[in-house]
């Protein structure tokens, strides 16, 4: 990704805010926080952001391999400056015992605290009993924290009647997603009682985190599906260059900034006014595995490609404009243009915070690249954000001939872990 950014594509849709980009930014600016003001903003946003700089000559978090604070009013990994790599896992809870589930969440929280700080799990990866397997799997030894964030979510199925006595606690907003036209969902890549999103600048750090949580969970949870991602497809750092998606287009020009507390409060965090009880301070996550028909896309004429998006490929400028960040004139775009359909102005202002990643899982046996966008979007209520937006896109988006949604999940992402005594989901279970 050297000099350019990469990014998300398919989601310009969601009305994102922009990342700027423009002029040959350095890799550093790309990956980390661009300026001191951002770091301040981050703190203001609730500690969910890289705690980066201590000196006047700010060191971007990505380069420093810094640790992102785990504790705070909101979970890290949402407004946090988007890291380069992802390992996302959805789990089935296999135990029927509520106490065991709670014990697991506590153990996970303690492990997450350690791993996000760059420490090994438990008693570490070596030095213990020779006859016993070590607590930590060890592949992250010697690596920096790499801005690892771990973010947990609870799926609708966790609240099912007769499971853990949570049926009355299921948030109204945690709806079962409707079937959208064109969906070709694989149940083996959809749903899940729990999810953990691991983001880090080093893929090994992200994989290590999920692997260790999965191991701790065995007997109580089992991985249902997981997804690796690279090349963030939208960022929450508007000063950085906008990344590009696998279709080669800049993605996330208007994504919500991780420092824009007003926008976050309005569109992302569940607020007091929502009367959502234990979910106050949390958010709702939609995860969609969007397969791209890469080969046919690559054969599409440039004009068609640009028409499909409603932006030009090189600069990312909206139709009829010259700069990426110029305000788009939606009516100049085709009615089926992705950006036009996804823009907040076409959706009563609906806005989501995207932090999706590109993926490629090799080829599919027919020699086709199994690649696309692993779409992750956070919002305050999917009924007002993702669902109407996706309905519109599924029905009209010109991009649909080049993509297919093959996996889908929806999670209630609880508020942050306050301190060393708090744990993921405490408010839900108490």
């Amino acid at each position, binding site marked *: 990704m050297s000099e350019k950014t990469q990014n998300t594509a398919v989601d310009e849709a969601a009305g994102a805010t922009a990342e700027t980009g423009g002029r040959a930014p350095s890799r550093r600016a790309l990956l980390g926080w661009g300026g001191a003001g951002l770091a301040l903003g981050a703190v203001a946003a609730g500690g969910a952001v890289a705690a980066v700089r201590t000196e006047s000559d700010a060191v971007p978090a990505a380069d420093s391999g810094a640790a992102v604070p785990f504790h705070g009013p909101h979970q890290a990994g949402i407004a946090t400056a988007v890291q380069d790599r992802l390992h996302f896992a959805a789990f*089935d809870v*296999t135990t029927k015992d509520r106490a065991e589930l709670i014990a697991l969440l506590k153990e996970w929280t303690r492990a997450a605290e350690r791993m996000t700080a760059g420490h090994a799990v438990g008693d570490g990866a070596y030095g*213990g*009993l020779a*006859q*016993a*397997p070590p607590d930590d799997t060890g592949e992250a030894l010697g690596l920096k924290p790499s801005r690892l964030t771990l973010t947990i979510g609870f799926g609708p199925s966790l609240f099912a009647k007769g499971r853990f006595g949570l049926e009355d606690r299921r948030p109204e907003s945690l709806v079962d997603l409707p079937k959208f036209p064109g969906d070709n969902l694989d149940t083996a890549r959809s749903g899940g009682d729990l999810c953990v999103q691991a983001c880090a600048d080093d893929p090994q750090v992200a994989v290590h985190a999920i692997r260790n949580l999965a*191991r701790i969970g*065995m*007997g*109580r949870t*089992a991985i249902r599906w997981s997804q690796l991602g690279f090349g963030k497809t939208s960022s929450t750092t508007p000063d950085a260059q906008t990344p590009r998606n696998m279709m080669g287009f800049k993605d996330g020009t208007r994504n919500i900034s991780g420092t824009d507390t007003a926008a976050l409060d309005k569109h992302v965090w569940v607020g007091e006014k929502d009367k959502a009880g234990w979910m106050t301070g949390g958010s709702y996550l939609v995860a969609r595995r969007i397969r791209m028909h890469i080969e046919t896309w690559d054969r599409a004429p440039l004009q068609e490609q640009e028409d499909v998006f409603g932006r030009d490929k090189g600069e990312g400028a909206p139709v009829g404009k010259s700069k990426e960040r110029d305000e788009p004139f939606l009516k100049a775009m085709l009615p089926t243009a992705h950006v036009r359909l996804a823009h907040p102005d076409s959706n009563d202002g609906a806005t989501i915070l995207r932090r999706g990643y590109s993926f490629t899982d090799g080829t599919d046996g027919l020699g086709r690249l199994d690649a696309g966008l692993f779409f992750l979007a956070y919002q305050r209520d999917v009924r007002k954000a993702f669902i109407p937006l996706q309905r519109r896109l599924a029905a009209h988006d010109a991009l649909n001939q080049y993509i297919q949604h093959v996996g889908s999940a929806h999670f209630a992402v609880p508020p942050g872990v306050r301190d060393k005594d708090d744990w993921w989901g405490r408010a839900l279970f108490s």
Partner: protein
Amino acid sequence: MRAVRFSVATAAATVAALTAVTGCAQKSDGKGDGALQVVAKDDACELSKKKLPAGHVELAVQNKGSKVTEVYVLFPDDRIAAERENIGPGTKATITAEVKAGSYNVVCKPGMKGEGIRQQIEVTGGSVAKRSPEMDKAVAEYRTYVQAQADETLPKAKKFTDAVAAGDIEAAKKIYADSRLGWERTEPVAESFGDIDPKVDLREDGLEDGQKWTGWHRLEKALWHDKKLGAEEKALAPVLYKDLLDWQKRVGTAEITPTSMANGAKELLDEVATGKVTGEEERYSHTDLIDFKGNVEGAEKSYELLKPIASKNDAALTATLDKRFAELNTLLDKYRKDKSSYEFTSYEKVGKADRKELSDAVNALAEPLSKLAAAVTK
């Protein structure tokens, strides 16, 4: 079949050493000065001393009884350190062994039957890992179990190999899975003899260049895939029986420790996780669930024997293990109509989602089981 477990190297070395030494000893005629004099009678096993220095030990045996006898030197867990069979009345024999410090039993077995007459001796000097009496008890009981499994397997193996040799496909198919059960229950011990496992339990894809494929799975393929027994298969049947006989004879000499028992239990689950859950083990007969059950039973046996020790050190762990064993067994029971039989659903009929459920249950048990060794040695 997996790589070697337990300390094969040690076990193999011990066997080699004993063999070599025994060879010398026969020449020495039992006249060594430092020898432990053993006088075997019909009702006694008299020793000239009860304390010996570690290292090269020689036993000069005199059979003063009226019956043919045999004499063993046994580790506290009943593993054979050295032995000599067929010592006729009025004759002498010498037994030698390399022994480390610790307690041993010298056993005379007049008539070569029964438990024999035991005398405890102490070997001092050098250093050995301390083992508590309850650990020795666990190991000794497990050794008995392992031997019993081998002993019970042989008649079934005979039935199987006889059927194959006679060209009776149906009879052979019927007894095939059952003939493997004892082996599956004690696989890690069997595999500690690096040479037996590749002869009896190798799958076709495990063959090295130029290696001849023998054993159960070779015959499995003939029975279920080729659906015929040619001259070659018929000739391989007695070879399998002979190799299993070798296992039965040697299994008592395997090196077994409390930690190898604990890790052996986990390894049995590993066998399930890598071979049975995928359906690779019994790819022609699809009898994987029977092997699966055998592996779990063997693991459970090790665990039950170690539990008194482990529960003192880590009660939470043993509580979890009790629960997970029960859960896995309950899940397995879904695949058989009669809980007293080993007739399980053919694995090809077990769907993808059910296989995942089985796999998750195996992980659920194997993960805490991997902590058993630590709980035992704590």
